Structures are given as structure tokens and as C-alpha cells.
């Protein structure tokens, strides 16, 4: 329970509701300073995992610790320095935003009441602070949720779909806010369906499917593992495509509007360039293209790829062995998200 303890560390987390396995031996390692994306399709077990992290529900097995403290054992003390919301922030509709924050500040203590004006300013709700939350739009409630979290001056911010229901400007502002908070040293655990948002913000991710982690590690490593793609323009794209298809180690070669696309390891690209030169085909441009998070997400969570592509960045420095990813066989039962 020292300051060196990681913000979130989960080991073998299981949640079972009768016959339904919502979370199946999830391991997570959120490090200090991470902007950590927590991804998965609906029903994958993300929200259930976050609820267990916040001590709202009891794991069937396993343990989750926040800064080294298990919420079940330490109660509210485990949430010191932790803030956020799961499945959308909820407030008392018959109270104004300010009164809601006053209530939450009273439940926080530690001078939180003195920060109300400040956090209302941050989320730009000051002009509407005296209006009842019952009349607020979804986006305004999301912003109020952020304000309520900031009241606690968190070191770890847990956000479950914070951009849901926001308009494009609101989503942009939310991204800026999260980036700004991360820049101030706050660790962010971000559960989101907005894959471009996660790709833009997060440095590490966990992808869950059917209640299990199918990848955990650095986003950059995941994208590298996804296979490097290349785009090439030549003096003779038709001939280049023929040569690429004939070359060992070059996969998925195809021509498109912007030249020839293929996937290959770096050394095979070198071989191809020599072959092209030997055939008298000049290379005008050769651009590496990393797979997008969206491509990788669907590869990991859909069809055969869901289980067949279980991967991790376990080779990366500092990664805990068991926490890197689950390597157990595919679960036969489909997990559903409860609550």
C-alpha cells in the first residue's frame, strides 16, 4: 500500500452471476502515469470489472487493488485519490448541479467544498450550476460527472465511456481535458467504445472479449504485432504488384488508388525493393502504415481472430508475467455484462 503500488492491479478477477460468467480471470496492470484504454465489445465485462475496482460489486474470485489497497478490505480508504464514474455519472435530479457537488464534497471532506467553483469552471457549467440536474442534457451530466471526479483531486481517474452522448465539440473538449489531466500526472483508466479516441489518447490498452483479456500492453506494441503494412508507388504499379505477389514474405498484396499495398516484415521489404530494381521498376514512394486500433480491435474480438489472436506485450520491459494477458483457452460460454 505504498505510493509505489500501481494505481490499478487486478489478479484473476472473476465475476459470476449464477450461470453467467461476466468476468473470467481478468488481470490488469495500470501503471502510474498511464492513460490506459480499456476496450471491448458490449457485454465483454468492462463495466463489471470497473465496478469491482471501485468496490461496488464483490468479485467471485480474485482481487483488485487501487494503489495497493483492496476496496473490499479497506472500504472508502481504498478510494483515496481515486475518482470517476461507471456507466455514466448519476446525480440527484431534484438538486442543482451546485447542490449535488456540495453533497459530494461533503462526502469527500478534505476541503473538497472549496473546489466547487473551480471544477464547475473547468467543465464550463458555472452558468447553469444553479439549475436542477433533472433538466440537464446528457452531455451536461457527463461534464458534471467529470467535475464531481475532479473535486477529489484524483491521482487515478476511472472513466467509463465519458464521451458517450457528447456532440463532436464536446468529444473534442473531453479529449483535451483528459489529455490535460494526464499531462498533470493523473493516471487515467478510460473505458471507451470510441476507438479513435483511445488511439489518440492512450499509451497502454487492455482489450477484453467474453470476459477475458485478449491483449494487454502498449498500444504501439499491439500495432506492431498487428503486422506492418506498406503503401508503395512505382513507375509501373502493375509490374510491381506481380513482383510483390511472387516475392516470399509479402502478404496481401493488392493495388489500389494510391498504388500497391502489402504486408511484410522489414527484411522482406528490402528483398522486394531489390527485386523491383532488378526488374527495372523504380520506387517513387514507400510508406509504412501501422494497423489502426480499430483493425486490431476487430481482429482480436471478432470471429476466429477473437481467440486465435490472443496476444500481449509480455515481452515489453516491466510487464508482469501473469498480468500481460490471459493465455487460457477460449471460454465456451459467452459473457454478458450485468447491470
Amino acid at each position, binding site marked *: 500500500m505504498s505510493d509505489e503500488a500501481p494505481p490499478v492491479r487486478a489478479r484473476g478477477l472473476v465475476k459470476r452471476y449464477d450461470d453467467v460468467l461476466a468476468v473470467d480471470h481478468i488481470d490488469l496492470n495500470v501503471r502510474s502515469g498511464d492513460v490506459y484504454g480499456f476496450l471491448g465489445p458490449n457485454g465483454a465485462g468492462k463495466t463489471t470489472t470497473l465496478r469491482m475496482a471501485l468496490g461496488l460489486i464483490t468479485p467471485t474470485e480474485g482481487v483488485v487493488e487501487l494503489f495497493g489497497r483492496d476496496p473490499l478490505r479497506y472500504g472508502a480508504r481504498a478510494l483515496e485519490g481515486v475518482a470517476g464514474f461507471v456507466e455514466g455519472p448519476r446525480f440527484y435530479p431534484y438538486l442543482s448541479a451546485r447542490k449535488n457537488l456540495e453533497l*459530494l464534497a461533503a462526502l469527500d471532506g478534505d476541503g473538497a467544498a472549496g473546489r466547487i467553483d473551480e471544477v464547475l469552471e*473547468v467543465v464550463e457549467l458555472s452558468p447553469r450550476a444553479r439549475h436542477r440536474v433533472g433538466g440537464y442534457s446528457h452531455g451536461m451530466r457527463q461534464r458534471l460527472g467529470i467535475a464531481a471526479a475532479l473535486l477529489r483531486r484524483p491521482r487515478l481517474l476511472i472513466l467509463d465511456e465519458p464521451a458517450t452522448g457528447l456532440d463532436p465539440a464536446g468529444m473534442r473538449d473531453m479529449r483535451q481535458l483528459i489529455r490535460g489531466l494526464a499531462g498533470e500526472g493523473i493516471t487515467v483508466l478510460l473505458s471507451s467504445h470510441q476507438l479513435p479516441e483511445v488511439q489518440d489518447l492512450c499509451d497502454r490498452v487492455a482489450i477484453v472479449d467474453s470476459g477475458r483479456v485478449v491483449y494487454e500492453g502498449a498500444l504501439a506494441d499491439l500495432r506492431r504485432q498487428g503486422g506492418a503494412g506498406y503503401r508503395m508507388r512505382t513507375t509501373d504499379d502493375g509490374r510491381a504488384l506481380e513482383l510483390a505477389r511472387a516475392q516470399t514474405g509479402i502478404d496481401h498484396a493488392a493495388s489500389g488508388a494510391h498504388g500497391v499495398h502489402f504486408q511484410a516484415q522489414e527484411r522482406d521489404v528490402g528483398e522486394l525493393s531489390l527485386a523491383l530494381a532488378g526488374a527495372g521498376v523504380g520506387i517513387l514512394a514507400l510508406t509504412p502504415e501501422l494497423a489502426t486500433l480499430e483493425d486490431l480491435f476487430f481482429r482480436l474480438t471478432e470471429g476466429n481472430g477473437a481467440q486465435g489472436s490472443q496476444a500481449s506485450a509480455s515481452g515489453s520491459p516491466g510487464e508482469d508475467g501473469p498480468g500481460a494477458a490471459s493465455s487460457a483457452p477460449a471460454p465456451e460460454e459467452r459473457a454478458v455484462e450485468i447491470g
Partner: protein
Amino acid sequence: MSSAAVSSPAAAAPRTAHARRPSTLTVYRWELRKLVSQKRTYLGLALVVILPLFFVVFQNVHQRHDHGADNIFASQITQSGLATPVLMLLFLSVFMLPLAASLVAGDIVAAEDGNGTLKTILTRSVNRGQVFAAKTMAAMTYAAVAVFLSAGVATVAGIASWGFHSVRSFSGTVVSAPEALLLVFASNAIYLIPLLTIAGFGVLLSTATRNSAAAVVGTIGLVILLFIVAQIPGLEGIRPYLVTEQFENWHGLLRTPTDWAPIAHSAWVCALYLVPSLFAAYLIFLRRDVAGG
């Protein structure tokens, strides 16, 4: 959420290792403030205020003096305003005051569950035990407010209509007006013993069912059920141990000399209901999964 605002220091400074956490009293105060802010809170209070007023107005309009000899306070209704709160307690104690207490007790946990706000308050710096204690105290405070508000309105309306005069007690002895006033409020305080037990049962149902309507109806259903049980021939032996039979425990105060036996009996009988109810509710609240909202 402007980019300029992002650099606000609000989130910058890390908290100290062990921040001072709020007291249960703080949580309780906010529970009361939440009750005060909700319209439904006033429904129960309106019921127990309107009925005494209606009774006094009706009596004034009809100018009835003979109310039968079955109740000594009924026969004194126009002789002293202090008979009014006693009669009102007699009438309201059976159903209306338990109903008012149930409206809040049955709602106090379940409503938060339904609205999803339970997760909001349980992810702050207070423990579940504190939240439960504060909610229970708030529900019981409401029940007490309902009882004394009703008694206050009935007393003021009665005195305004028929004056501040001495009354005769159940034993037939004359009690001076100031002493009778004191006894009126003491009787209401004694009546709180079974009423708070009903409220405690409401809190249990509210915690266990997570459904406001089920908890409120269930609590009132229990009151009705116990009244029915009390009427079943052959079950006379258990009648003294039913909570609903304790609703008349305060009669002992209005006898000369004061009969403390029914009050003491009611205290331990109610404790037998209240303590296990609240303990069960506490355990459920502590261990439950907050998966709603």
C-alpha cells in the same frame, strides 16, 4: 471544457496519504437535506397535518358535543383543546402515521438504487456503514417529525377552537392544562417506539428489495397483516408480542398513577423486531452488489 480550463489546478495536486474522512453526522445531515428537497417527502407530512385540521374544522361546523362514552377524550373534545391531539394520536397511530413513516423508510435506499445515485455516493470517502446509518437515522427522523408535526398541529388547532383547559385522564382524574400538554407530547414520544420499529422494517425492505414501491407496500402490508393476525381466534397468546399491539403503549402515560408496564413491554417487544431488522438490513447493504444505474 475549454483547453484553457484543462490546466486548472483542481486536479493537479495529489491528496495527502490519509485525508480526514467525513463523519456519519455529515452524511446524515445530507440525507435530511435530500429529504427536504423532494416533493414526495411532503406527501406523508401533508396527510398527518391535514387530518387533524379537517377533524377540528368538521367538529366546529357540526358543533357536536356528544361523542359517545366509549372514549373519555372523545367526550371532552369541546371542553378542552388538549383532548384533540390525544384523539388524533388514537386515530392516526393505527394506519396514517405508519403509512407516513413507510413512505420514506421504504424509499430511502431503494430510490437511490433505482436512480443509480447509490454508486455515486459509495465511491466517495464514506464507508457503506456510514451511509446506512445516516439513511436509517434520516428515515427515523422523518417518522418522528411526522408524529410531532401532527401532534403540534392538532394541539394548536384544538386549543384555538376549544381553549387550553384541564382534561380528565383515562383513569378519570383531572389533569391540569400544562401537565396535560406535557403528557400529550410524552405520549407521542412513547408512540415512536413501535413507529420506529415499523420504519426499521421499511428500511430492511428498501435495502433488500431495491424497489421503493415494493418496500412501501410491503411495510404497510405488514402492519395490516399483524392487525389481521391479532383478530384471529386462538392466537390471543401472541397478540401482546405483535408490533401493532404496541401502538397503544402510550395509554399508560395517561393513567393515574402512570402505568409504566405497557411502555416497558412495548420497548422490549419492539427491540426484538427492530434490532434484527436493522442488523439484517445493515449486512445486506454492506455486502450487496451495486450493479444498478
